[in-house]
């Protein structure tokens, strides 16, 4: 399954790049994430409750951030495993500066799903993934706005 899209976030790439690696920010961008812990330098583990089509399940998910090229791009590797099946994704995240001080976050990559999700919810996966990603970006945007506000307040 192809994953592709873009989303506009407030702030310049330089302001966003580190934030996007921040576990506190990352967790906000993962809908249904219940526990989140750092395993190593670039590796995190979370327990994510997700619903894809008719399959609702809890996934133990590891995230790894790699190939960092600040502030332009990084890759996010994700592996989720649970009774509902497994999800693997490797996504290139590109931060493209906009004239108005905003940043377009473009993501592109491949995801593989297996198990019950593939078997039963396969044709709902793409749409389901879209909903989850959108919610993730909305939450991320909110979180970054709060951060930027807080930064602004601190600076003032």
């Amino acid at each position, binding site marked *: 399954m192809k994953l592709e899209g873009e989303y506009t976030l407030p702030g310049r790439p330089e302001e966003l790049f580190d934030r996007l690696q921040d576990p506190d920010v990352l967790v906000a961008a993962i809908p249904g994430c219940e526990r989140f812990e750092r395993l190593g330098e670039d590796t995190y583990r979370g327990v994510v409750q997700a619903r894809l089509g008719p399959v609702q399940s809890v996934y133990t998910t590891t995230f790894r951030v790699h190939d960092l090229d600040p502030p332009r791009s990084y890759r996010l590797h994700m592996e989720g495993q*649970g*009774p509902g*099946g*497994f999800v693997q994704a490797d996504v290139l995240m590109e931060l493209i500066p906009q004239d108005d001080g905003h940043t377009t976050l473009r993501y592109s990559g491949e995801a*593989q*799903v*297996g*198990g*019950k999700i*593939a*078997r*039963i919810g*396969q*044709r709902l996966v793409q749409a389901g993934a879209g909903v989850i990603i959108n919610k993730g970006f909305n939450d991320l945007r909110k979180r970054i706005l709060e951060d930027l506000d807080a930064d602004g307040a601190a600076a003032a």
Partner: protein
Amino acid sequence: MPNFIGSPVKRVEDKRFITGKGRYTDDIVLPGMTYACIVRSEHAHARIKAIDTSAAEAVDGVLAVFTGQDMVDDGILSIPTGWAVGDAMKEPPHYPLAVGKVHHVGDGVAVVIATDKATAQDAAEQVMIEYEPLPAVVDATAALAPDAPIVHDGLDSNLCFDWELGDRDATDRAMAAAHHVTTYELVNQRVVPNAIEPRSAIGHYDPAREELTLYTSSQNPHLIRLLLCAFVWPDLPEHKVRVVSPDVGGGFGSKIFHYPEEVICAWASKKLERPVKWTAARSESFVTDAHGRDHVSTAELGLDAEGNMVALRVKTVANLGAYLSTFAPAVPTYLYGTLLAGQYRTPHIHVNVKGVFTNTVPVDAYRGAGRPEATFLVERVVELAAKELGMDPAELRRKNFIRPDEFPYDTPVALQYDSGNYEGALDKALEMIGYEDFRREQAEARKQGRLLGIGFSSYIEACGIAPSQVVGALGARAGLYESGGIRVHPTGKVEVFTGTHSHGQGHETTFAQIVAHELGIPLENVEVVHGDTSRVPFGMGTYGSRSLAVGGSAIMRALDKVKDKARKIAAHKLEAAEEDVEFVDGTFRVKGTDRTIGFGDVALTAYVPHDYPEGVEPGLDENAFYDPKNFTFPFGTHICTVEVDPDTGVVRILRYVAVDDVGNIINPMIVEGQIHGGIAQGVGQALFEGAVYDETGQPLTGSYMDYTMPRADDLPSFEVGHQVTPCPHNPLGVKGAGEAGTIASTACVVNAVVDALYHRGIRDIPMPLTPERVWRALHAGGDGAAAAAAPAGGNGQA
């Protein structure tokens, strides 16, 4: 006394079925019952690095969690296949639960047993399995590539067997000399069997008696017991095991085989000393019931200038899935290659079949088992040849039919057809459909832009696979005879014991009709017993449309013994010589007199032998085993008409005519029902069904949201005609009717659709002929073949 043979008696079993009172395996509840849930692989191919069962074991209500290694350590061996195709056939182990590696999505890895089903299911989610995913191969042709991932450790390729039949050189020479050669490349796609009752098993071990009862939704309980005790669990003594297959809700082949869950429930029950039940969820059925078909083939049919078929050359790659299921090696070989002569006099035929392992659900017999694949190939390539030669498809068939005076006919692919009248069935079907009128209607419709088509399928099948000596020489690891028993009770009531099994076929009615007819007693005085190894003599179960031809013949033999003995008793009572006593309508009579004794009085005498003939044992209870001389050869011609909507690609079947010759008919209503169901199932493959995997081995059609079954409104009312050419070598003159519909109808429908579209440059559309595929073929600028090109393998639908 009514004549029960040939009478449309209502099925006696339907009272319990249609009132919801059937007793299926899952309906059985035993004291202390526990419930198994099997943890299944989500990976098509992966090494099992670790299994952590601790969290599952800690769940309240969980009694045990077992892995494949636990079973192997306790003496459980691999599940064997029942047929060897050549000495070089590869037979990798198939453990009831995976050991070391999983080989397909759905492969069992562990079993959780709990006091209730929900707890078992919840705890199964707590079994943590660490996998190392490996590259998977799904497509059989791709699996033969030198760099393909190897499914089984210890093998150097995925080739299971490389089999051929027929004279290769003679076929090549005849092909080279042919005036015209029609070439057809086809995919006979993988289908899921979808019996309405999901598979179920209960193991019930009694530690005090050291006896095991296994209840299972099986088509052949004796074979399951034999495989279990002789091969899989050698420590289990056969005489201490009872296998019961109670009411079974449909099989279509998928319930012939010895499945892992039967072993798991039996073994776990002994470990826990409690009954263990497992019933498949529908989503489990999709990834564990043996699938059907999945061939990729090339057929070349050579014809001379007059349209006589001179040679047929076939190359097939058959996907066997991850493991060899019970009959798997026989289906694409002895049940397929041998049928490639069809109804035709083609003198030279050669077939090569490569059986291949892939990371998919095992493939085995599915209604028709090899014969639908053979019929599809033959009838499609014959249809294409007619089109290419500009001949009428009915006339090309007629010209090449084996003629009635040529029987017995030895085909170039090892069978001897014993009887037939192919032209008779074709003519009757042509008359029923009104062939000339339809061709005129078709031409008129075409002028208005409407797409009508007519399709033929003149099929032959081989039923009641036999005799044992021959199939043994061909690699069968079992005999193919059948048992029958007649137990006359003192009151004259009769129990009939058959080693066949009824899971929708209506044996309780058909067999009772035979016995009531032969003994001249009311139908309600006859009870048919089947599906219990403790009650029925060793039998081979039901598949391959064998029950009546083989099992019914065994019952006839047992009836002969009963009648012979009863005649002795009657003669004694009537004080007459045995040869002077005749048995008519349930009464023994001294010929030419009014001195009679009824069958009931004879039965009572047999059990109260106060006044009894010298040297005759008391009782009236006889068994027989029947090993047929040959297969039986049902045949027929099906013709259907279709209309294709050029705007949407939707195919609508307008009429469907079936003329079948299944030999003598005991119950025409049951036969017609079998034909109806069979046609629907074959239409399902032609238009709707297909099991699809993605390239990593994930099944994408794992539920009825994505796997399309035919529904009532997809089908017309079938018009069924019969022709009767009795089988010359069994006592009933019957041949078998369970699979005919499925064998014929798939090719029939596809031929009709291609007939509708051929003038638009379309010579083939790969099955299933979904509206999308038909529409794409129609909108590909005339190059239909390219647009509708078959996917590389047997699995493409998406």
